[in-house]
């Protein structure tokens, strides 16, 4: 299976849309990268860099205006349903239903992913045990704390045991304890051989978690590689400095021009 090596293959992915105020916006500009199974690929970039757009394209919620991406061998442009069924997606925009209990929520999505009743039940029991969700299995979404909601989201993301998982700024708005638990869970998923994309604007998370990272800014990948490679290439041991340097170096020529 050739795609076992490249579970996610992104090639020249481009997304542009028109905006009333700013005219044509290129949110993602010919971006290419690959991700292997058992690897966490970090996307690092400031707010509005195009991370969310890129991940939405991979999850087929948005359609690309150029280029293509294949996930587990399925193209996001021609087989979006198949792509969606083999990814788990979690972001700040994927909320939990207010009027559903934790159990119902996970069960509902399990069914939507086409799981049969018996394996689904077993899987939910397993997930609720590992994520320690049994005490609030019958609590409605509106009554849950942020930590509980996050756990439900994770359970929802991985209920169908997808080979590919995408986390878009999953820790934003979480306290340290919950964030830490979440990062642990993601690391555990990687050990199971999952192929994971993780986007954030927090350096520490990237350094701790990711095997390879891509620094993305204004819709383009400025640099990509392992943490060590990047530090070596730019001769900058501190990741935060490196990131800042890259961004401002890219900003400067444009800013310096008088027109």
């Amino acid at each position, binding site marked *: 299976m050739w795609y076992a090596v490249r579970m996610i293959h992104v090639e020249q992915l481009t997304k542009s849309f028109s905006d009333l105020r700013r005219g044509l916006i290129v949110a993602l*500009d010919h971006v290419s990268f690959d991700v292997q199974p058992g690897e966490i690929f970090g996307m690092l970039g400031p707010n509005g860099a195009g991370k969310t757009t890129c991940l939405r394209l991979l999850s087929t919620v948005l359609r690309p205006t150029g280029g293509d991406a294949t996930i587990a061998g399925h193209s996001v442009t021609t087989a979006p349903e198949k792509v969606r069924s083999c990814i788990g997606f979690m972001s700040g925009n*994927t909320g939990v239903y207010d*009027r*559903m209990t934790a159990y119902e929520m996970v069960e509902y999505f399990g069914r939507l992913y*086409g799981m049969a009743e018996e394996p689904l039940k077993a899987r939910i029991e397993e997930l609720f045990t590992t994520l320690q969700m049994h005490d609030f299995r019958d609590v409605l979404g509106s009554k849950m704390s942020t930590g509980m909601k996050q756990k439900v989201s994770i359970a929802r993301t991985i209920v169908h045991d997808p080979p590919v998982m995408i986390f878009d700024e999953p820790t934003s708005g979480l306290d340290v304890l919950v964030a830490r638990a979440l990062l642990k869970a993601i690391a555990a998923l990687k050990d199971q051989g999952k192929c994971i994309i993780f986007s954030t604007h927090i350096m520490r998370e990237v350094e701790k978690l990711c095997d390879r990272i891509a620094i993305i800014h204004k819709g383009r990948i400025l640099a990509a590689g392992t943490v060590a490679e990047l530090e070596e290439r730019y001769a900058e041991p501190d990741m935060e400095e490196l990131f800042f340097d890259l961004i401002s170096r890219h900003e400067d020529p*444009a800013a310096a021009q008088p027109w």
Partner: protein
Amino acid sequence: MVNWRNVRLILHREVRDQLRDRRTLFMIAVLPLLLYPALGIGMVQLTILFAEQPRTVVLLGQAHLPPTPQLLKGDRFDSTWFLNPADAEKLHVVADGAPPAEPADADAARRAARLIAAAREIRHEREREQSLQADADAAEAKWHDLARRWEQASAAATTTGEPATAAAVSAAEQDYEQRAELVRQCRLRQVELLRSAPMQALVLIPEGLAEHLEAINKNLAERGPGVKGVARYPRPEIVFNKADDKSQITHNRVREAMNAWDGAILKTQLALAHLPDEFPHPVQPTSTNLSRDGQESARLWGQLFPILLVTMALTGAFYPAIDLCAGEKERGTMETLLICPATRTEIVLGKFFTVMVFSCMTALLNLVSMGLTGRHIASMSGGTASAAQSLALPGPAALFWIVLLLIPLATLFSALCLALATFARSTKEGQYYLTPLLIVTLGLVVFCASPGVEIEPLYSVLPVAGVALLLKGLLLSSMGAVKLALYAVPVLATSVGYSALAIWWAIDQFSREDVLFREAERLDVALWVKHLLRDKEPTPGFAEALICFILIMFLQFGAMRVLTQASSAADSAGAGIAAMRVLLVQQLVIIAFPALMMGVMLTTSLRQTFRLNWPGWQILTVAAVLPFFLHPLTVELAASLHDFFPPLPVEIQGVLKNMSNENLPLWLVLLAFAAAPALCEEIAFRGFMLSGFYYTRRTGLAIGLTSVAFGLMHMIPQQVFNASLLGLVLGLIALGSDSLLPCIVFHFGNNALAVMHSRFGDQVPGALLTSIEDGQLRYRWPTLLLAAVAAGLVLRWLARRCAHHAAPRAGAAEPQANTAEQFSPHGV
């Protein structure tokens, strides 16, 4: 392929979700169950409150009332004078002659005395007013006489009587004004007295009434010389204030009693004269009501149920739809749903069925609750058979039809609400969008419920109205069952069609990124206008095309009065020419000018916007020939649909008559009816609007919208239909050639043929191919067959060409966008 398992899953979840929502439950289930009983209780209480307030009537001159028949009984009118005897209790009569009923009650006696004093004052004022009025009338007559004489004097020196001066006239006028003012003041004083007394009506019995009646009776009994002289005597007067509701109602009651009393007196007199009771009504017809029992109730329900069913089906769809789409966006769970393997179509269908379930449930619960409450009230009102009957529920067959017709209604509303709610960013915005829908629907329903409106071929294909009228017809059973069953077919078929369109729209909305992920940006109109003027594009945008259409419609609407006035009376050649001139001006000013101005102001390329390209001889020839193929089809289609549409308004008939008006020169008629529309309408519709609607590169949508707009601009149903179809052809030509010229050629050809047809059609010798019917040239089936085949081939060629044109254009747009992408980050 739709995976129905997903649809069912989503449906189940959404229904459960809605049932857990307190607001929805309240709207859908609790409100209807509580509303009608609550309304019933309120009504009962109101009637009690209302019944417990007797009104005060003062009667002066009790002494002059004849002893028989007795008008008063104690401090009430005699209950025999009322249709409903209980009504007597609603009027409290204070009469001047009566001894106080209970002398012990000093309070009541004092009150009565005060009322009578006020009444006497009013009577005095009435008398004063009469003499003042007489003075004022005299003064007015004098003033008018003087004024007339003065006018004569100034016109010709000859005058009759003494010459009048301007000063005398104005003095007389002033005199009259003063006297009239006195009358007004007198009136005001009476109103004030009536109000402050307080009494609601005053009955004045003139002096000697009893004696006069007595005299007449005696005269009749003795078979005297006649009653002519004796019958002339002053009659009683009821004084009241119509501007005051209570006084008005009291007046009606007093009048009812006194009319009945009057009838009784008349009856005595007739008996004395040995005349039959029917004598005063020699030819009064009797009315016969043929309605069977239960049909009366059908009438009530027939008017009420359609209104209720439609409004409740809409409100029932309204709130769940907002919650399911806009609410889901707001709560941030939309993306969660979008990333599951279910397709957008499946999601929309799941949500759509949910909304439909609630729409149906709301409507049915409302009907049940209202029906039961109505029946309960009827049974409570104590066996008055008519009331119980008028509230009896319709039979099982009618109920079956209600449920059956509810389904297309609920389908349409659910899909419409869903599409609008998808477009909305928040629940609040959703409510704004849906309010116009509610208002439009209510307007339609009220129209349908108004008496006399019945289902007709045209109405049967209108959305909502068809269903409402069919239901009304069923409940009223005013039409034959067979006829209604015939109407049921188009009503149901069109309902299904409309619903399918609405669902398609909802799915389309749901598949669009710019709708699903609209940022909650504030729309700043000033900024938008600035953007339009600053960042001009070669061709107009979607919104600009829409605004152009609305502008043209507004101008049409505003100028409609002028146009119809100017062009209606057009029998003579002069008036006809004037009408032609108005038509030309209308075309230029109302249709071409706005589009041209918007093109100049809002776009950078007039050439692209108005398609000023050379199309090539091939398509020009096709555009010139095609009208000849389509013309016979148009004529026959119009003739076959003649009975379907309502008859043309008289003004329009007048305008159209000009087409065949022999007095007008042919060139002028062709100019007004063919050349000007071809040029002006093409500039506006295939030029500006089609370019704008084609902004998103969706060929079908652009052509469809433009032709609907083109149709609507023609205002009259027949022409709307005809023009919409032609609009489709014109759209194909425009996009297939990317030039306005063939459109103008085709449009001119089409209209010119119509002019020729109405002007010279009856001179064509009838043969195998044509015939003359009612002075009109009609085409026989061989012509039609040939024309249809030829037109079909040409249209297919055009459609292919259009698709062929659209494809490279989209491709051409792509590199353009790419270059923009590549250069914009560096160039600026």
